[in-house]
């Protein structure tokens, strides 16, 4: 019996596909490795400079010492408690602010009346640095978590409101016309056109707000808190414990990047049509 000819004809194509996929994967890995290698080299340089006595290790403790301190703080539970305290303010503030901001922005984008009524007011308020209202919030709510959560929420609110309103207004009018021509109106227009059409802008807002939220929660903890990563950093300064301060800085950096990575990932999930 002779071998069927088909597999042979298919094999080169299979190989070509595999080669393309392999190349794409190698490229991805190469870039990922590069992204890790650069910080690693910088850290090693820092370490070497510290050991060679080129920098003042009191102010710039070498990474190895920071790592040791980090493990100590983690083991004692202090680091975990501070991280939990910060998250306990950041996450509720972010969620409340984002939900309210997206809703307000959506209404202002859809309704010209609402946009005209609230637009100028909101853009005036937007330019007020939100951290400046913290004393007022403290006055109103006292020294507990509420003013801190609200400070985050207010910051996030404005970012979401502005991004969402402009996202709704920027939906391609040709798409709106085509949807209307097929009878889309009211709730159906909302669900099939306005919400998905505004989603990219909402997600841009969410990403921006995730960074700003971390900034605000840390700043608030500097001045008005007995716990949290912001307090950890500030307290390390007042007690002159540079290595503890660096632990706090690293923890904030990690928290911030994990937070925005989570938002980005959720965004990709929510917009499967943007796969390319």
């Amino acid at each position, binding site marked *: 019996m002779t071998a069927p000819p088909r597999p042979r004809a298919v094999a080169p194509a299979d190989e070509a596909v595999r080669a393309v996929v392999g190349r794409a994967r190698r490229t991805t890995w190469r870039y990922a490795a590069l992204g890790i290698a650069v910080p690693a080299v910088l850290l090693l340089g820092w370490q070497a400079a510290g050991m060679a006595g080129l920098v003042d290790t009191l102010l710039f403790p070498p990474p190895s010492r920071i790592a040791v301190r980090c493990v100590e703080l983690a083991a004692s539970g202090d680091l975990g408690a501070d991280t939990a305290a910060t998250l306990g303010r950041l996450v509720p503030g972010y969620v409340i602010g984002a939900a309210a901001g997206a809703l307000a922005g959506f209404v202002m984008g859809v309704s010209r009346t609402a946009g005209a009524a609230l637009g100028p007011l909101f853009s005036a308020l937007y330019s007020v640095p939100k951290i400046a209202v913290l004393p007022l919030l403290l006055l109103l709510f006292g020294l507990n978590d509420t003013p801190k959560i609200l400070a985050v929420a207010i910051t996030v609110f404005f970012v979401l409101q502005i991004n969402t309103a402009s996202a709704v207004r920027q939906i391609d009018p*040709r*798409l709106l*016309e*085509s*949807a*209307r*021509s*097929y*009878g*889309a109106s009211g709730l*159906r227009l909302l669900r*099939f*056109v306005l919400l*998905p*059409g505004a*989603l990219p802008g909402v997600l841009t807002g969410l990403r921006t707000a995730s960074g700003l939220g971390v900034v605000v929660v840390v700043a608030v903890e500097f001045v008005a808190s007995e716990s949290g990563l912001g307090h950890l950093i500030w307290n390390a300064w007042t007690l002159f414990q540079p290595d503890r301060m660096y632990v706090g800085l690293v923890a904030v950096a990690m928290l911030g990047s994990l937070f925005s990575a989570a938002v980005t990932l959720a965004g990709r999930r929510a*917009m*499967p*049509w943007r*796969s*390319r």
Partner: protein
Amino acid sequence: MTVPPPMVSAQDIGKFFLAADGRAVQALDGVSLTVREGEFVCVVGPSGCGKSTLLRILGGLVEPTTGTVARRPGQPPVPPAAFVFQDFAVLPWLTVRSNAAFGLRMAGVRRRAAERAADAWLLRMDLADFADGYPDQLSGGMRQRLALARAFATGSPVLLMDEPLGSLDPQTRRLMQEQLLALWQEERKTVVLVTHSLDEALLLGDRVLVMSARPGRVIEELAVPFARPRDPGIQDGPEFGRLRARIWDRLRDQLSVSAR
């Protein structure tokens, strides 16, 4: 023989737009047009003469400044008219299947039933393999066919098509013209088709309207004498060439007007 009833008729349509600089731009001037059931009317004219505007007015998307439009009302869930837009305007965030089902969903048809009807049209338009993908993953020609599937799937008796084949390469375009011809012969929809291609207008249409440069008026109306069902081969005959030359003669003056 009885004359079929009018599906869309426009009387003395005029349309002004407010341009960005605040001046009024007249897009249409005294256009009257009656399209009867099962008729295929093609509209040709220089760019910017108001063809898309006329189509929008016929479909009720835009109100005319002067004149009146009468449409035979649809029977829900079937809409009175379905559009195929110049730039397709399929929704990028819906899957190909959901886009094809869009008209029916908006008319209140349940998802299952709408998608079944959509799938049948995707199959006819050769898009069944892409039903779960998104429009971004389609080529221009495929997106065009998706826009056609979306219009046909509504079951609307009236199709208003704005250069539906405009962005296709010449070979694909010719193929799609033949498919459209076959499709129309099976479905017998009432169609108004805007096109820049005289061949397309003569191959597909029962009537060809020639419009003037802006403000658009109907300057010539030509009944296409070829019997139905038509064979695409008529394009190579002498009669076809004569008609094309006649339309081109009228159109040429207008093109030079609008170029000035």
